[in-house]
């Protein structure tokens, strides 16, 4: 089967982990890693594995556009704006792992079908990828008046960008809980835990449903959704059964990463790259089916 060629801008941890995930994809071919530091670990690893390497950023990539069909951006919100303008004008598909959110929020198990055609898709946040499927699983059964998520991640898995802009996580995730999850109102909380050995990412979803009485259907919908997410994040699990208290339901999750480049406790980073790879893979299948 013909595969679509992938470029990754940003040769840091996220970009490197993504590279390993692309290698396992059935519709994508890792092609080029783009960085700005020739000495960076990510560029070295990409070169060792036989991929093209560009060390002068977007300018270098723009000279080798034939190398890519789909480009992932794992840099920063500010840089992404510039990258996206150039790449979209050149007719490339762009998947945004930064908080820039130029394109629609995309969560593979929830709204990927709506956005295949769009030139730029945004991957929300790690907490969003882990919890919005559950919010949606509830809201497809019963109206959700309010949903709140609490993401607890190991301190070691929260990079300097996340730390310096922690409010961005809150803003973006809350908005996506509403727009993608289907809750009328959303709220997001993030907690960093420095325990050693590092803890697995934990996520809790609290939702206020419009009515009681749909508990069994809600549980079934959540279980179905967990299975779907497990298709690209095998370590995505419920912790115990959903807990009901009147109209309130609380769902407890943990996310163990695949351990590609990040250690397994960094489920928060893994679910971002896994979701992005899933989106690109499905998109590639659609595009190729359309060509035939």
């Amino acid at each position, binding site marked *: 089967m013909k595969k679509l060629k992938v470029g990754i801008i940003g040769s840091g941890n996220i970009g490197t982990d993504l590279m390993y995930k692309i290698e396992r994809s059935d519709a994508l071919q890792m092609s080029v890693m783009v960085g700005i530091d020739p000495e960076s670990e990510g560029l070295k690893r990409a070169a060792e594995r036989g991929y093209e390497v560009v060390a002068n950023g977007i300018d270098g990539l723009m000279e080798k556009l034939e190398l890519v069909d789909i480009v992932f951006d794992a840099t920063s919100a500010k840089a992404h704006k510039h990258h996206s303008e150039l790449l979209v004008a050149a007719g490339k598909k762009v998947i945004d792992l930064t908080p820039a959110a130029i394109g629609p929020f995309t969560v593979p198990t929830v709204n990927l079908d709506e956005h295949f055609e769009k030139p730029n898709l945004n991957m929300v946040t790690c907490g969003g990828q882990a919890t919005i499927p559950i919010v949606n699983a509830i809201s497809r059964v019963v109206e959700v008046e*309010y949903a*709140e998520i*609490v993401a*607890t991640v190991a*301190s070691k898995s929260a990079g*300097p960008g996340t*730390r*310096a*802009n*922690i*409010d961005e*996580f*809150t*803003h973006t995730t809350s908005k996506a809980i509403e727009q993608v999850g289907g809750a009328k109102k959303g*709220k997001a*909380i*993030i*907690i*960093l*835990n*420095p*325990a050693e050995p590092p*803890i697995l990412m*934990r996520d*809790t979803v*609290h939702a*206020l449903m419009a009515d009681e009485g749909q508990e069994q259907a809600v549980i079934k919908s959540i279980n179905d959704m967990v299975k779907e997410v497990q298709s690209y994040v095998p370590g995505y699990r419920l*912790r*115990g*059964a959903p*807990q009901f208290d009147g109209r*309130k339901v*609380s769902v*407890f999750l943990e996310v163990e990463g695949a351990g590609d480049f990040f250690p397994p406790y960094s489920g928060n980073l893994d679910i971002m790259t896994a979701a992005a790879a899933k989106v690109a893979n499905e998109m590639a299948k659609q595009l190729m089916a359309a060509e035939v």
Partner: protein
Amino acid sequence: MTQRSFEILDVTLRDGSHAMKHAFTEQHVRDTAKGLDLAGVNYFEVSHGDGLGGSSLQYGLSKVDELKLIEAAADVCKTSKVSVLLIPGIGIKEDLQEAVKAGAKMVRVATHVTEADVAAQHIALGRELGLKTVGFLMMAHMASVEKIVEQAKLFESYGAEVIYVTDSAGYMLPHEVTERISALKQSVGCEIGFHGHNNLSMAMANTVAAVEAGATYIDGSLRALGAGSGNTQTEVMVAVLERLGYSTGIDLYKIMDVANEVVAPFMQRPQEITGSSLIMGYSGVYSSFLLHTQTAAEKFGVDERDILVELGRMKAVGGQEDLIYDVAQSFAAKKAQ
């Protein structure tokens, strides 16, 4: 007016929010604020127990919007200033801007003792808005003295004017307080504060240790109304520190009056050291977990103490209230097997 030896900052209307299950009314706040103002307390805090934006299913929904409570407090103050708590990850910069519109004059930006770097933007905003800006290192028992010094230096570099050592679990003993406050006095230029909890009956002893080591901001709550077994009792602290020869600037009778005539009547339960709060202090668990643990223990038919010991073992940090229900459920499941 005599020179004050230090500032006593009253947290009844913020830490007490935990003990009140976040059900403060405007009347409670107005009456308490008036009393604190009259007694000569320069700063007191009003917010949801978990800080601005804390009203949530995770921590408990506020009965009355905290902005209304801040406004009510600011409205009755002649000289006292209203402080707000902001925990990055829970509250956001916009919450602080709203709080300032409602009348807040001080912000205390709180992080877990090892995570100060999430607070840079919030501390900078506090300064920008002209607030007295404080960095608040929570669960200070969980880090070494060197680590606390390192994190305090970060707060200072972001612009914090005061840095607090916060014994959120009521775990610390006086010599540990002395060690931490002294180390900070030596290594940072800002003023140093101490916030205690009474889970091991050490709040007053720790407060005295902090003052003697050079702390110049000291927290207390009226009738000890706060999370867990509550805080250092403000009115008692005034008496103790005056006897030690310090000048608090606070009128003892007036602070006793607001404690006993205003706060005591609306308290939902006495601030005793119960079996659970003792275990919190003993195993180093965040004090606001107390009432959530009681609820979870009841719901799942397990011993509160087992839950708390497990949370201590797991090194849970402030804000992880969801973990209580998770742990309780897994104990219940094990019991059923």
